[in-house]
């Protein structure tokens, strides 16, 4: 009803209302006049500027552009006299006119496992049926703000949920409260990785869960698109809107790559909404071949005036402040197509300032304009209507005083669909220079300066400055000042209409109330010219001196791989290396060999020869005298280098998720582990569920991207038993099955039974609905995927082996396996390996019988035994942990060393590539200062495939460089603060450290 009333109200002011709309507050006055703007510089497209040209519009549309166009008789002529016309901007990623949905009302301790909606997809965070148009309402205040910045059209959606539904494309034209301003009720489909705030449904509780959910949803949609019935409102909505562009909020460079993979899998085109850090992985970003939406929310400098607080800020955060404004230039140079958005910009007024900053750093004005006009129009598939100035397009344009990205430019008018919105008065008569002000018998000097819309005044009497306040609007000039005595509150008031910039007359009201007149006359234009020349000369001079002093050129700090402390400016490269005269722990039948030269060639171990017998040239020489060379450490159980959640705790079977989706290549713990001699880590899902997620296996190739780091075709999945999966320590009853070990067995048997049926059906040529969970479990049944299972007590360990046997497969590895020593015989018989902690215990009830002799006992029973870390601190000194097998249980040193190298390689099925020093294997080796099991040993060089990724000497240089760079950046920030720039408060960078039982993002 309210809307209707509003509508009715507006109709009255329409000059060009829809012909078929009734009019009840007067008579219909159809307006079929044309308007022409003459003598304008028209930027038709970002690359085409037409000088001294005319623009003819009628109603909402552009009719013609040109120097010699036919101007009908009924045309209103507006002479722009050299002003500029641009197509107005488009924000493709707006929330204009839409309200945030309401947050769910569940308490923090309440769990919600299932969806609470009927008829929709099973997950509350999948909301493709959301139709923003149904709640869209024009927002006058925000429209004004946007118009001021030069925007004329927005694509607006509700920023909530993983599938967010459709957006509205609207022109910011409220004179047309009808179907004219809405260009599309459904503009695009929107997606993200972020859950909806409207529901507390637990799934997905991790980024990898969001990704799996999206995949399952797209699979389901494809499947149902081929069925006659059976789908739901959500899937149907998605299918109905499938012809629309898809915009995906990725935020963060790595997540853009993740989203792009999903798009490719389903043959979709995602327009990726980034976050401004794309330059950090620009090659990969470029290779997605996607179009992007990029915000320009450059961070404020930190307030580093308090050194204690400044100390807490990470170099990467300091550096990002410096590098972020260069993101657009980097994207442009790499030919990445992108649209700019105001999103993420807290203070929208920073838009212009930030854009000019980017342009100063090399972002081209053409691309800047394209990213605000033609590109978003094209991405929205609305190029015919918006984004450029051509016949037939909407009359959405800006009238500006100067070229749009000129520092001095003023936007005068922002026309939306032929309706004028005045931003600044175009007709104001510019006042500038020195004037003489005559009031009664007194003569003052008045100096006016600045933009006409922000005119400043300086008033003097006999060279003494008098405080004054000037207002200049609509060509009305008024000035207030206190002429005599600042202690008295008596003022002289002047006001007059300006018709001529050289002489202004008006009335003055003196401090005593007496009314008289004033005359303001511009003085001595010759002198003014001279002044101007002087000024120009001065400017030139100062510019020159600035250049010669080498200051004004802003410095952008180099991006490193990864772009944090200890990243390298150049990615390290493979070399052919000879390590001379070293003690070699081969892990092969040769055992430990002394005085050998080890040759690494083309990323492989080439040969082990007697010291001094290899004579070829062209090898980098490393002296190994009194040092030990071993195969790189392999950590079977690690949780480093994972983005946004190690556990998908939303359901008890999460086989559909995979850590491979969320490898985080810029985790400092990769470098720290390298420094501890680790070369390969298995990144495992946590232990929240009986059936966890799939694992990633990475080589710690510091600086490379997640794909380069990962072993291809790593087919492992994490299972778990015990206290974690049965929610023994959730603060309030979670009511999730299972709550006992008895229930855990049934989760396994139940899921494998389903998987078997699914697989049988598939093999029989039937086509069941694709189910990623069952696909993965079927791989296990078919012995194509392998289980590493988090385990503690002997009963459940036995149970899982029996479940596997029942389904005719074997468990590959029990990880943690703290009571393995109690059932080592059974494990041996089953054929499972054990990857345990060296000495952890006492942290929960189920580890009461954990003993540090566990590894030794299992080893003696013939089981392949590894020690793992499950901890980012321990993983960087796994060599010491291996030595504990010597201490507890008298395992020989040679065998103990295999606990962290060859044995985990076997457990991970990669012993054909790594785990020992043998001709033909990958050149993944570590040079130690001492016996590697000794606490006094330090990894001096860690080499992966012939590339030196850690070097203890290089590390020292890095430290020095870090402290210098910090210092330089802090000084730059202090300079910013001193110059009055707003700063942000210091903040310490998060370091997410995951363990098996970590929850949340």
């Amino acid at each position, binding site marked *: 009803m309210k809307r209707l009333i509003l509508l009715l109200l507006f109709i009255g002011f329409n000059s060009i209302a829809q012909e078929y709309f009734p009019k009840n507050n007067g008579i219909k006055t159809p307006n079929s006049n044309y308007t022409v703007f003459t003598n304008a510089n028209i930027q038709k497209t970002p690359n085409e500027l037409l000088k001294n040209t005319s623009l003819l519009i009628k109603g909402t549309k552009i009719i013609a552009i040109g120097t010699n166009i036919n101007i009908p008789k009924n045309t209103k002529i507006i002479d722009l006299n050299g002003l500029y016309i641009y197509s107005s901007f488009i924000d493709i990623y707006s929330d204009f006119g839409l309200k945030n949905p309401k947050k769910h009302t569940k308490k923090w301790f309440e769990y919600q496992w299932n969806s609470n909606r009927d008829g929709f997809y099973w997950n509350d965070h999948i909301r493709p049926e959301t139709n923003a148009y149904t709640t869209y309402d024009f927002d006058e205040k925000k429209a004004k703000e946007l118009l001021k910045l030069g925007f004329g059209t927005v694509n607006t959606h509700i920023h909530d949920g993983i599938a967010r539904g459709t957006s509205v494309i609207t022109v910011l034209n409220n004179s047309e409260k009808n179907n004219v301003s809405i260009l599309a009720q459904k503009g695009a489909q929107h997606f993200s990785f972020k859950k909806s705030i409207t529901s507390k449904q637990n799934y997905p509780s991790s980024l990898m869960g969001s990704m799996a959910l999206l995949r399952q949803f797209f699979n389901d949609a494809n499947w149902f698109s081929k069925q006659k019935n059976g789908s739901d409102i959500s899937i149907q909505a998605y299918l109905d809107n499938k012809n629309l562009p898809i915009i995906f909020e990725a935020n963060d460079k790595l997540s853009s790559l993740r989203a792009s993979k999903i798009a490719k899998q389903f043959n979709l085109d995602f327009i990726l909404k980034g976050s401004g850090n794309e330059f950090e992985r620009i090659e990969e970003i470029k290779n997605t071949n996607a179009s992007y939406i990029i915000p320009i929310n450059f961070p404020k400098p930190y307030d580093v005036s308090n050194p204690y607080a400044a100390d807490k800020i990470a170099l990467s955060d300091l550096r990002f402040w410096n590098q972020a404004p260069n993101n657009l230039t980097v994207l442009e140079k790499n030919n990445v197509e992108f649209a700019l958005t105001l999103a993420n910009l807290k203070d929208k007024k920073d838009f212009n300032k930030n854009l000019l900053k980017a342009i100063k750093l090399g972002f081209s004005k053409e691309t800047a304009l394209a990213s605000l006009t033609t590109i978003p129009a094209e991405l929205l598939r609305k190029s015919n209507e918006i984004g450029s100035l051509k016949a037939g397009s909407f009359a959405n344009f800006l009238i500006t005083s100067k070229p749009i990205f000129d520092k001095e430019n003023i936007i005068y008018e922002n026309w939306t669909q032929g309706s004028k919105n005045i931003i600044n008065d175009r007709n104001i008569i510019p006042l500038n220079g020195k004037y003489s002000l005559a009031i009664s018998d007194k003569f003052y000097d008045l100096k006016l300066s600045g933009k006409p819309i922000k005119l400043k005044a300086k008033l003097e009497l006999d060279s003494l400055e008098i405080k004054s306040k000037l207002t200049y609007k609509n060509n009305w000039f008024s000035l207030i000042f206190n002429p005599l005595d600042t202690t008295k509150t008596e003022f002289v008031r002047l006001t007059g209409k300006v018709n001529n910039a050289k002489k202004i007359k008006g009335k003055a009201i003196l401090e005593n109330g007496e009314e008289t007149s004033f005359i303001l006359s511009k003085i001595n234009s010759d002198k003014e010219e001279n002044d101007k020349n002087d000024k120009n000369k001065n400017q030139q001079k100062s510019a020159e001196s600035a250049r010669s002093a080498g200051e004004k050129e802003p410095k952008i700090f180099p991006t490193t791989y990864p772009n944090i402390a200890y990243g390298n400016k150049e990615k390290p490269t493979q070399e052919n290396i000879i390590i001379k005269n070293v003690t070699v722990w081969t892990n092969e039948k040769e055992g430990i060999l002394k005085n050998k030269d080890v040759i690494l060639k083309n990323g492989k171990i080439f040969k082990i020869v007697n010291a001094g017998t290899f004579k070829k040239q062209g090898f980098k020489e490393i002296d190994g005298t009194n040092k030990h060379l071993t195969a790189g450490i392999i950590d079977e159980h690690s949780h480093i280098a994972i983005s946004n959640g190690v556990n998908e705790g939303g359901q008890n079977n999460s086989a559909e998720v995979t850590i491979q989706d969320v490898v985080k290549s810029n985790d400092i713990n990769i470098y720290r582990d390298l420094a501890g001699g680790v070369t390969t880590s298995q990144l495992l899902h946590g232990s929240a569920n009986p059936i966890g997620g799939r694992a990633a296996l990475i080589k710690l190739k510091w600086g490379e991207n997640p794909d380069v780091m990962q072993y291809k075709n790593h087919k492992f999945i994490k299972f778990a038993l015990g206290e974690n999966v049965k929610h023994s320590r959730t603060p309030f009853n979670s009511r999730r099955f299972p709550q006992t070990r008895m229930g855990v067995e049934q989760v396994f048997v139940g899921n494998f039974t389903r998987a078997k049926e699914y697989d049988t059906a598939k093999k029989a040529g039937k086509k069941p609905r694709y189910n990623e969970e069952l696909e993965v479990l079927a791989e296990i049944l078919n012995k194509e995927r392998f289980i590493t299972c988090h385990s503690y007590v002997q009963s459940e360990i036995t149970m899982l082996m029996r479940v596997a046997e029942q389904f005719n497969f074997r468990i590959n590895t029990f990880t943690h396996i703290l009571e393995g020593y109690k059932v080592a015989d059974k494990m041996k018989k089953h054929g499972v390996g054990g990857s345990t902690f060296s000495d952890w215990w006492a942290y929960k009830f189920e580890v009461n019988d954990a003993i540090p002799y566990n590894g030794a006992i299992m080893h003696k029973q013939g089981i392949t035994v590894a020690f793992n870390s499950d901890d980012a601190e321990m993983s960087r000194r796994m060599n010491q942990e291996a030595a504990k097998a010597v201490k507890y249980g008298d395992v020989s040193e040679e065998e103990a060393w295999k606990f962290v190298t060859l044995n985990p390689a076997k457990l991970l099925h990669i012993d054909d590539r790594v785990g020992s020093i043998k001709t033909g294997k990958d050149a993944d080796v570590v040079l130690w200062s001492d016996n590697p099991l000794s606490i006094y040993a330090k990894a001096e060089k860690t080499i992966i495939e012939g590339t030196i990724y850690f070097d203890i000497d290089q590390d020292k240089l890095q*430290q020095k460089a870090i402290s210098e760079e910090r210092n330089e950046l802090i000084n730059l920030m202090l300079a910013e603060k001193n110059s009055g720039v707003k700063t942000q*408060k210091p903040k310490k960078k998060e370091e997410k450290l995951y363990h098996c039982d970590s929850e949340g993002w």
Partner: protein
Amino acid sequence: MPYMVKKRQNNMKNIIFLLLLIPTIIFAQQTPAKKQNGIVTIHGATAHIGNGEVIENSLIMFENGKITLVTDATLTKKAYLGTIINAEGKHVYPGFIVPNSTLGLAEIDAVKATLDQGEIGRMNPHIRSIIAYNTESKVTETIKANGMLIAQITPRGGNISGTSSIVQFDAWNYEDALIKEDDGIHLNWPASFRRSGWWAEPGPIVENKNYVKDVQRIKDFFSDAKANNKETIDLKNKAMQGIFNGSQTLFIHANGEKEIVEAIDFKNEFNIKNLVIVGGFDAYKVTNLLKENNVPIILKRIHALPTAEDQDIKLPFKLPKLLDDAGILVALDVAGGRMERMQTRNLPFYAGTAVAYGLDYEKAIAMLTLNTAKILKIDTKVGSLEVGKDATLFISEGDTLDMRTNKVISAYIQGRNISLDTHQKQLYKKYTNKYSQK
């Protein structure tokens, strides 16, 4: 049915075996040793005295629980008396001391019923750890077995956690265990930077807005306590008097540079005689101040990650050396990381890591022995192999700071030859037997 019979016999055997095991399982905790009877002589070992000195071929004797001789065996002709232990090739160390420990106050981290280390409330100087100290903790057994024989049992939580006491690890009851009762009070200095938000919705780590208020609250409490209104007895005020008269030590737990600086200011403001900084990660930045004010450091666990991304990745390992080079008295601690109680058995290896990163070996030993004893003010009784001190020491097969060679073969507390058996060793034996039975 010969088969059945045989099976039953086997079962019988198992039952008998089980019956034999039952007593050791039920009485898993070790029996405290009898008082020293006669003289014990250990010869031939490399003796690490604890004060920085080392004797390669040593002769050590003790009687009635006290050390009577420590000398170079090659320089004396003194007769070997009593129980003579040939320790050639082995190493003897003073019993290692664990400062700031919760051993015996809690057993299983994840089982609340077993946790007694933290009381509720902000200011709890009157809370006394000693009365909750469980001498029969199964965790402590495993600690003892690696050479840690003494600990300062310390409560946790609040601003003032409470009062600690120092015990030795071979006792029937907490009263028997005591070396020093109520030795000090523990104050957790507020953090100047901390996570905003709350645990269900955590925010970024930013400056603590309440820092000044939090500090003021502590100061107010100390001012009140110092005034010590005697008209009515206030247990909390009363518990604080030892801090002001110097009979007790104030342990301020602080890691950040700013917090440490403020803690030292605080010492001077309240004229506190004995201040120790516990934690002390950033202490290396303010060594001059620490030295001027004669403040020692109980350094948090060094098997730790750096506290910031840009930091020297090996900084935690280097801290003992950095502090020692600056002339600060340092003891090594286990607290400051996960699973502090069970990890205590790795304390020697923290010292080993410090040696790997440049610290002199005997100085590293001192950080586990005499330095700790000095900081805890028990150095007249324990902390080094010196005549007149308690015969609290142990013999290791090899270098005890390296897991490769660390094997404690016997240990003495006040001259008593204590049991080094543990629940874990028993399970080791039990299951080794299981497999050898086959």
